[in-house]
């Protein structure tokens, strides 16, 4: 299990190593390396999702490892409380940034192995601290340095630990 300590409280996440082995391992490695410590939830949209794990305060992007393959064709759905990988327009471009769905986002699910249809890979779910997620999603946001929906007050990911 993953214990994510944020400035708003603790979120517990269970990774799905069976359905998304490469993605779960990738996340666990970033966590073990301490990569997420000091990153932000930098994109917060209440009826959609909260995204973080790649930007530091001041919206500077942390250098990551190479992108991983998209495992969104694993049958897992982007439903409320699931955790999935963020990426660019290229389906196989996820690195460290992840998001927690705060709505049932069917349009993010895999539909076809094409650039438009790959969807976003779910690799875990929140098993504790959904109240913290709900608090984060309603924080006031603004635009900062070309990014929209950035919380006005930093929402810090203080540490991400792998616990047994």
């Amino acid at each position: 299990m993953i214990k994510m300590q944020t400035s708003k409280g603790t979120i517990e996440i269970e990774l799905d190593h069976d359905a998304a082995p490469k993605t779960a391992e990738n996340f666990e490695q970033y966590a073990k390396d301490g990569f997420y410590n000091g990153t932000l939830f930098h994109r917060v949209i209440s009826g959609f999702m909260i995204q973080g794990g790649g930007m530091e305060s001041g919206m500077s992007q942390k250098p990551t490892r190479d992108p991983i393959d998209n495992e969104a064709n694993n049958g897992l759905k982007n439903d409320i409380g699931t955790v999935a990988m963020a990426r660019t327009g290229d389906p196989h471009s996820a690195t460290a940034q992840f998001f927690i769905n705060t709505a049932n986002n069917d349009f993010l699910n895999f539909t076809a192995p094409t650039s438009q249809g790959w969807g976003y890979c779910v690799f875990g779910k929140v098993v504790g601290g959904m109240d913290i997620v709900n608090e984060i999603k309603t924080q006031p946001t603004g635009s900062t340095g070309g990014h929209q929906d950035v919380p006005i007050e930093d929402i810090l990911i203080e540490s991400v630990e792998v616990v047994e």
Partner: protein
Amino acid sequence: MSTLFISDLHLSAEHTDTIELFQEFMSLRACHSSSLYILGDLFEVWVGDDYIDTKLLPVIDALKEYTQLGNRLFIMHGNRDFLMAEQFEVLTGGTILPDPYVITLNGVQTALSHGDMFCTDDVVYQAFKAKVRTPEWQQAFLAQSIEKRREYAAAVRDKSKTHTSTKPHEIMDTNQSSINQLMLDLSVTQLIHGHTHRPNLHQFTLDNRPMSRYVLGDWYNQGSVLECDHNGCTLQTLESGSVLASVQSKVID
């Protein structure tokens, strides 16, 4: 030469009378202006630049003719036609503006907005808006067939009608504190927006400075236009068949 502002025309293939009124407006009124700003919801629905109903083609032609004469056309997304994009700009010669956008209008710093951002009390709508404006949602939506997109748009419209008919009126109106905040943030003394379909001029004081807020009317039964020149701005109503002899609306607060 004047600057014209219109919004909330909600043009659709089903309402040819409004399309005709718009054509009349473009040929008889807009020709005396040098800039036209359309502040959102020009169309009732826009499922992507790759689908234009043939009945709406005269609208595109009228806009193109306007820009080809050397006039400037600016378009802002509304809550219904936010998928207008680059191809639409190419077809009309217009420029899509971000919302909000600040211009200097006859020496007055003026913010332009569609206006839906001020309806902050309607949290259901704001959550929906936030989602559909994301690149993830738009990419997934535009990847679907035109038929599927039209079906979805029709379903959203039906749902929106149910939602708005059961909502108290105050929720759907603008929130004054969010208006004040935006005007202070952008350092403007004038704001022009649409969306609420309640044409009016609101004058108030903020930080000891006089502020003006013009609300444009919708085009369901008649047209509405704000005309600005060096003498100031007037909010006018356009009756079909008498666009030239337009009636100046009574402005109250």
